[in-house]
Every structure is written in structure tokens, then in C-alpha cells.
């Protein structure tokens, strides 16, 4: 099946360029005439994922695959990984540093938002290897 495949490098520790991949995907979805509600949901989820890679994983890759009826976004990093995924998924759990908190991050709401705003949410993580998140929003 024909689809649009987009890939972006997300620069670690760069809060200024963070969100660029999300912006691009949003622009593409708008051009395709996708419902703004759906764009909003995947864009917020993707931005949370981008920011997490910047803050917690020293960067990574953001991959978007846009089909007729859905978008699948993957966030792949080779950061330190998450030891206890259930704990990380709890609203309010965060290991963010003071520096990061002063920028407004570190509420521990990113992963819960990603799950809340997407139709399908999968997270795999291995300590010392990295984290792989797959999210789907159906149009």
C-alpha cells in the first residue's frame, strides 16, 4: 500500500530545535486535509515523545508513517532505557533534573498524555539499550 514515510533525527539536549519533527509532520497532515482534532492528538503525543528523547535519552529518531486511515509514529532512541515502565507510566512520576524542570518539563505527564491522546500506544524499553515507542492515531 502506498504511504508517506518521514524520518527525523532528534538532537539530544537541544530544547530550541525540539519539536521540529512534530512541526513537519503536522504541516504534512494539514496539507493532506486531515481532521484538526486528529492532528492535535498525534502532534501533542509526538512532541511529548520528542521532548522525552531530548531530556531523557540524549536524542533519537522520530519516524512517521502516514496511511489513508491512520498515522503511526515511532520514537526510537539508544538512551539509558526505562527500568520500570509501569512506574514511568504513572502520572506524576519523573526523573527530570532541576534544570529541565525550570523549563517547564518534568511534571511526569508526558507518557500519560501520549497514551491518552493516541488510539494505540506501545512502549518497549531495555536498560542500557534504549526505548522504542509506537503510537497510532486513526483518522
Amino acid at each position, binding site marked *: 500500500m502506498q504511504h508517506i514515510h518521514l524520518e527525523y533525527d532528534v538532537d539530544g539536549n537541544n530544547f530550541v530545535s*525540539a519539536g521540529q519533527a512534530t512541526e513537519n509532520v503536522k504541516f504534512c497532515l494539514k496539507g493532506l486535509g486531515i481532521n484538526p482534532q486528529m492532528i492535535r492528538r498525534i502532534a*501533542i503525543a509526538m512532541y511529548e515523545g520528542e521532548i522525552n528523547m531530548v531530556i531523557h535519552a540524549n536524542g533519537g529518531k522520530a519516524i512517521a508513517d502516514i496511511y489513508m486511515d491512520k498515522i503511526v509514529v515511532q520514537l526510537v532512541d539508544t538512551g539509558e532505557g526505562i527500568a520500570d515502565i509501569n512506574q514511568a507510566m504513572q502520572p506524576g512520576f519523573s526523573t527530570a533534573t532541576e534544570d529541565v524542570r525550570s*523549563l*517547564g*518539563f*518534568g511534571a511526569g505527564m508526558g507518557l500519560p498524555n501520549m497514551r491518552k491522546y493516541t488510539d494505540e500506544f506501545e512502549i518497549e524499553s531495555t536498560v542500557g539499550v534504549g526505548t522504542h515507542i509506537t503510537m497510532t492515531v486513526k483518522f
Partner: protein
Amino acid sequence: MTVKELAKILGATTVAESDFEREINGGYAGDLLSFVMGRAMPDCAWYTIMTNVNVCAVATLTDCAVVVICEDCTPDEMLVARAKSQGINVIATSLDMHSAIALVAKNC
């Protein structure tokens, strides 16, 4: 209420103007960006004391009508530049969030 009307009520200064005729529907106050992204509704006025460039990303993602920077906090140059280029309405007031929102409620 429009952004222009809100700015007048708050005695706010303009940081970045895109469309001050835009209609505001509701409000959200907060500085923790993931809370804002989880809760703020499109077309709201977002009250915050955050002043860094990430405010722009969150404002765009939530599609808020205006960002109201409270308590005389000075927005970063990068925030101002990006708000202008992305067409985000940003105003600044000396009032704290509670006083600002109370004042808006009184004028609704």
C-alpha cells in the same frame, strides 16, 4: 471576548501580535507544559509565568488563542522571535495569575 479586549482588561502589553481579533473561549493556568498539553482546550487563554521558547511549541500544539505571561516575567528573545514567526498571540501583564483571572471573571 477577543484577545484585544482581554489585553485591555489586564492592562497587558503586546509581546507578539498575530490576530488580536481572535475570539477567546475559556482559559487555563499553569506552568508545567505537559499539564497544559493535557488539559488546555483550543481557543483558550493560557496564563503562565514560563518565558522560554518551548512555550511557543505548546501554544501551537494546544492552539490557544493567546499566551498571557504573568507577573512581569520577561519573555526570552527566542520566544518573542518564534511567536512572531509562528503567528502566536502573546501578551504580558504585571498581575499574578490569580489576580489576572479574577479580573477577567469580573469583566465577563
